[in-house]
């Protein structure tokens, strides 16, 4: 009986220890930094400098808003693009299932940087692609795609698509087909069966995918750096610049904490809205 009680702790042990040692502790140091003041030259002192937080938030509010907007749009686009694809792989692919799944992840094995650089080439002003987009009117007043919000959002969407596809696929795949058959036996049409049975059952996957996409997208800076210009800078670019170029570690640290807090707030609200059982694994209560 006692052994049974201890099992979860053995399972948790390695993971939690790793995370505490290599995530929580460094965060503590970041926390200290965010409340310090001074510069590299004069030395940093711990002065409970809460103004770091308010100052940096007001100085960089544009970039915060921009990051959340870009990430939000990219996430929505990812969802729209990914869901039908995940559905097709889970239900229509049959023998080709794993191959297709693989085709989804495969681009990941060429580096993030290279993929984004490839988009730089594809979307460069002189390319045929941009000419077509311009003809349709999608290239904006500058008649270019790069260095505009659109390309950064497109880059974010593209790069985070697998993060959306995989969880949705995983959760669609284990839906018991008999439930769908039962719905059809009960006279529902194919689309009703989808909306009433499949979609709700795939909710955990959708929730996971959305979070896995939105959160890193909000803090991203590579896409903005390679595909955008100063007008598209995201909060990730600001933090990186503050840390590396300006060496204003307290401000950088405080911005990081604000970003984390905002994201967590969004996540909490989202989970409340989407149904916490799906994510928090309340299942264990039943078992």
């Amino acid at each position, binding site marked *: 009986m006692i052994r049974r009680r201890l099992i979860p702790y053995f399972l948790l042990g390695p993971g939690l220890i790793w995370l505490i040692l290599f995530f929580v502790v460094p965060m503590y140091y970041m926390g200290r930094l965010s409340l310090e003041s001074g510069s590299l030259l004069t030395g940093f002192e711990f002065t409970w400098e809460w103004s770091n937080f308010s100052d940096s938030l007001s100085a960089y509010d544009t970039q915060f808003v921009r990051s959340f907007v870009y990430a939000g749009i990219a996430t929505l686009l990812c969802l729209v693009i990914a869901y039908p694809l995940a559905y097709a792989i889970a239900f229509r692919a049959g023998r080709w299932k794993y191959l297709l799944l693989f085709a989804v992840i495969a681009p990941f094995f*060429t580096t993030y940087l290279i993929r984004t650089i490839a988009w730089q080439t594809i979307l460069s002003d002189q390319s045929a692609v941009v000419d077509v987009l311009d003809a349709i009117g999608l290239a904006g007043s500058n008649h270019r795609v790069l260095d505009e919000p659109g390309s950064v959002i497109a880059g974010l969407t593209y790069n985070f698509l697998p993060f959306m596809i995989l969880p949705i696929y*995983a*959760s669609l795949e*284990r839906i018991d087909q008999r439930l769908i058959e039962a719905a059809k036996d009960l006279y529902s049409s194919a689309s009703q069966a989808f909306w009433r049975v499949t979609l709700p059952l795939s909710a955990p996957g959708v929730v996971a995918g959305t979070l896995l996409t939105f959160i890193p997208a909000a803090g991203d800076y590579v896409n903005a750096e390679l595909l955008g210009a100063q007008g598209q800078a995201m909060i990730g670019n600001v933090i990186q610049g503050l840390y590396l170029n300006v060496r204003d570690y307290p401000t950088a640290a405080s911005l990081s904490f604000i970003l984390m807090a905002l994201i967590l707030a969004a996540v909490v609200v989202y989970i409340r809205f989407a149904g916490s059982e799906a994510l928090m*694994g309340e299942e*264990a209560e039943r078992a």
Partner: protein
Amino acid sequence: MKWLRHNAINIYAGVAIAYMLIPIAVIAAFSFNDPEGRYNYTWSGFTLEHWENAFGVEELTDAMVLSIELAALSTLVATAIGTLLAMALVRYEFFGRRPANFLIVIPMATPEVVIGAGLLSMFLIYPFVDLGFQTLFIAHVMFSISFVVVVVRSRLIGFDRSLEEAARDLGASPLTTFRTVTLPLLAPGIIAAGLLAFALSIDDFVISNFNSGTTVTFPLYIYGALQRGVPVEVNVLATILFAVTVAAMVFTIWQQRRAERMAAVRPEEEVEMLPATPAVRPAPGGFGG
């Protein structure tokens, strides 16, 4: 028309996958480029030269090998740890469950710049490992765990426990049940998580940049090269990496099909096998000696 409606989703899937592969096609195409100077931005001419000399840029090849080793190792560890964590979180009621959940989600909500810089500061104050492969390994496992947990967890939720209960009813111990029922059923989720962890590791740039010391991973090499001209060999290696992984996957699937076909061929034999099994087991000390 009806054909279109029915197959619309398949056509869509095809288009979506093509979209995902477009940059890969561009990368592969430019691996055949023959630029005059250092920069591989405009098409100058076709050549196989860089393919013949694919591993010629020493620093690049070293970086690639290192990235693969790092990814393989960190994936194994992260997937194992993460799966255990997911099981604990979904299946057990225990002390500190909410905070544990929280702790796992937070790394994903943290900007990579912060994780990277924070880790570095800590490694310097507690230098129990050297900056380099070991610190990269630690960092990569760390950020992968959360993703593995989320993927495996979404597979675990709603998992049909009755199959496990059936196994228990038939007398299997918890460990055997786990090994023969739970794990295989969980496998797609674990594999998906593992693939994700591997890809994340190979791809990682920001966190690696801070914690690599003098070690250069593939993405770090490229970022540096971006400033001075990315050699064509980078495209070549990236294409090779892609092709190898595709080939590995095709091979695995082919093997799987073969196994299925083999199993399908001898149904009658299986029935006979059951009573005869004890005799088939090799006598102790039968081999070698």
